[in-house]
């Protein structure tokens, strides 16, 4: 996976499998501290300590949990390869949090890639979930909250193609704008 947004998609698909109704994705770029932090919090059914301790192990291959273990260990590896750290915490019936920190300008830090495609796919899932996405670049921030979008939509499904296209454009423009404003 050569885009961070693919790891985010993978982790969020786990959240959906864990019956989460809300997923929060927070990206914090700090070019002064040279950090790039990705946080994913869900309110799904979580994991007990045993599963949690096994989940980042790439050789943890019980068939039923395998797909979870594999993706988490790939994300962890991506962070550690880019001079960063990785942390996953979970509480049964409360949810799971993943925090991956990268060195912003590390040569092995993958680009974010197309985060709008990741969010579009999450919105097309059959399970009804809400996504809160916040992207911070130094002092500027962009927020997309599907709960607000649903208010405007008034019953029209988020997975409606025109809505998906609107969401994708909104994210793309939003992130480009905060980067541009920061660069000024």
């Amino acid at each position, binding site marked *: 996976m050569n885009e961070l947004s693919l790891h985010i998609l993978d982790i969020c*698909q786990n959240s959906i499998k864990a019956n989460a109704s809300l997923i929060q994705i927070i990206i914090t770029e700090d070019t002064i501290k040279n950090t790039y932090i990705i946080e994913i919090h869900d309110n799904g059914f979580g994991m007990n300590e045993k599963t949690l301790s096994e989940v980042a192990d790439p050789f943890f291959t019980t068939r039923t949990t395998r797909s979870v273990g594999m*993706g988490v260990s790939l994300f962890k590896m991506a962070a550690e390869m880019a001079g960063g750290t990785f942390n996953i915490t979970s509480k049964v019936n409360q949810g799971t949090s993943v925090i991956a920190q990268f060195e912003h300008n590390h040569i092995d830090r993958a680009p974010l890639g197309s985060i709008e495609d990741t969010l579009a796919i999450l919105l097309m899932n059959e399970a009804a979930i809400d996504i809160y996405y916040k992207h911070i670049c130094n002092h500027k921030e962009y927020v997309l909250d599907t709960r607000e979008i649903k208010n*405007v*939509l008034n019953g029209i499904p988020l997975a409606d*193609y025109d*809505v998906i*296209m*609107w969401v994708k454009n909104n994210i793309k423009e939003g992130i480009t704008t905060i980067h541009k404003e920061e660069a000024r």
Partner: protein
Amino acid sequence: MKSLDDLKKIRDAAQRKVTMRGKNEGTRILVGMATCGISAGARPVMNKLVEDIAEKDIPNVTVTPVGCIGECAIEPIVEVLEGEKRTTYCRVDVDVAERIINEHIIGGKVVQDNLIGKYRL
């Protein structure tokens, strides 16, 4: 904000459509989106399917990401469900996704080259 106005326009247009897409009516396209599928390139494939359907304004087709399909080695996997009929494609890339839309969904002809039987012998 201009884009919120756009969203409202989309909403109003959708409300005017009399037939809303039901979950199980029409054609369903499922895309394997477990770790293996994502690594194999399922995201651009799904993206392409959605964009083609939107662009060509094809009615009654839904695209849904699903979890593990059980065949990591031949991901990305795309399944087309039409009533009782199930067609499973594997090793789908963006070009094959486009063929699925044009030849299968629009043309009604299965894309033989990527049928699962070819790979799982």
